[in-house]
């Protein structure tokens, strides 16, 4: 346990000393995960809302697919994205493997079903009479969907938190498609794996502490935003 305390001390020291490499890793982790969360919102919210509001053949299996996707194994996604982005793969010409863009892509795939699933639940949880009323008031289809999403904004914020939490803490896909390259694709989780392999447990603990602080900070900010709306 000594190591834990020394690690926490190390975390404070690394951050306070303005260690360029550590700050670089922190900022990179944040940017990549926020970008992936943004992409997953762009895809997941429409899909979730669509599945909640529309009635069509094959809807039930699609809902099942989204729910199953909420538990996508990150290493599996990493492997799939690697196969796509390999030089010899279908998207190899883009030269994206081992870049932050590849990590955003993989993480967005992980987060999208989570966002879609929680959006679906959020919109379905609304009072069905609200929709009828909106339509009675003459809202167009787009206006109805927009208004319903606004009504569901509290649970939707939970979807954002869940999506972000899933990707910033993920290591399997990040290391596979990013390659853990120093200064380019090394993020908090992959750096932790490396430092453990090197036997630098204190640094590893320090990085984990920073990751926790970061996740907690972002989640707290979003939660405050959410709870403020409630009052």
């Amino acid at each position, binding site marked *: 346990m000594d190591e834990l305390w020394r690690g926490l001390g190390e975390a404070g020291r690394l951050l306070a000393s303005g260690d360029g490499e550590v700050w670089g890793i922190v900022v990179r982790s944040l940017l990549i995960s926020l970008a992936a969360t943004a992409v997953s*919102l762009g895809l997941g919210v429409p899909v979730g809302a669509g599945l909640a509001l529309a009635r069509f053949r094959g809807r039930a299996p699609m809902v099942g697919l989204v729910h199953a996707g909420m538990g996508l194994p990150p290493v599996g996604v990493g492997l799939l994205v690697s196969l796509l982005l390999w*030089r010899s793969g279908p998207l190899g010409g883009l*030269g994206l493997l081992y870049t932050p863009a590849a990590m955003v892509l993989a993480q967005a795939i992980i987060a999208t079903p989570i966002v879609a699933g929680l959006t679906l639940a959020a919109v379905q949880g609304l009072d069905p009479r609200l929709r009828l009323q909106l339509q009675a008031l*003459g*809202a167009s289809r787009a206006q109805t969907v927009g208004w319903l999403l606004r009504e569901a904004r509290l649970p939707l914020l939970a979807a*954002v938190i869940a999506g972000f939490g899933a990707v910033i803490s993920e290591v399997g896909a990040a290391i596979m498609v990013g390659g853990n390259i120093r200064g380019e694709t090394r993020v908090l989780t992959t750096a932790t794996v490396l430092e453990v392999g090197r036997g630098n447990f204190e640094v590893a603990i320090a990085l984990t502490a920073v990751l926790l602080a970061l996740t907690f900070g972002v989640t707290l900010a979003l939660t405050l935003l959410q709870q403020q709306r409630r009052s």
Partner: protein
Amino acid sequence: MATGEPAFRVVCGRRGGQVHSWFLAATLAVGALLAMAPGLARSAVGQEATPGTGPREVILATTTSTQDSGLLDVLVPLFHERTGYDLKPIAVGSGAALELGERGEADVVLAHSPAAEEAFVAAGFAGERRTVMANDFVLVGPKADPAGTSGAASAAEAMAAIAGAEVPFVSRGDESGTHALELRLWEESGIAPGGSWYTESGTGMGDTLNIADDRDAYTLADRGTFLSLRDRLDLEILVEGDRALLNLYHVLTVNPANGPAVNVEGGRAFLGFLLDPATQEIIGGFGLDRFGEALFTPCADDACVVPAVTPAPPPATPAA
């Protein structure tokens, strides 16, 4: 309709301020994406002063010990400084590194698995294969040495003693160079390892040493990784110095026919850089400050193999 729509807008407008601030998080995220765009563009396209005319990005598939020991942290910026190339090291086991080279997913390979490398060359997957540096493997285990390996005449004999006593042994089990050597030693000692005493960790050298330490088990490690972890481990070096434990690192350029986008020039540049006398000197001094001894012996073109540390003929194929 005409009467309904304005009413709806009024409601919207009244709460609009709140609604907009809700999108703060999303806006932040999009901002992050934009902020990252220049970096993405740079890494994907690369339009700075390019050495030669080819792409300036070189993918190195390497054994984990070069990354875990920290050697690459020294070599990567130096390579950039000398040649302008951006080296992207992907640290995997030697087996996986060669596999990436075979598929043309890497431009140059750094490995320490002689038999697998020779097969790679024989199959025509390599452009060139040269020795870069050496260190050695050591058999480590609990201080008490329950299998009595420290008296063994050779590494293979020590392995036989471990199997005979059925004391725990942790294998890498990942087709790395270390794993390949371990299997060769088992073969030499005429033993097919298995049973409850034999564990395959499936992880890198550092993790495997940690597992062995936790279980009071024996394992085979490269000296560099062991030294870098020694302070935290209760394991000790029990067998060393056997010729069979020599660990030679080779650099292999990748045959451009292996894949669609192999950076031949870049791969060659890295090979040349590693063999350059100035780089060799840096390799020879690496680790002195941190561990009190150098982790690698510079060994361009087998220069290090000849000195009579162990009485053996200078080998072209050291541990076949």
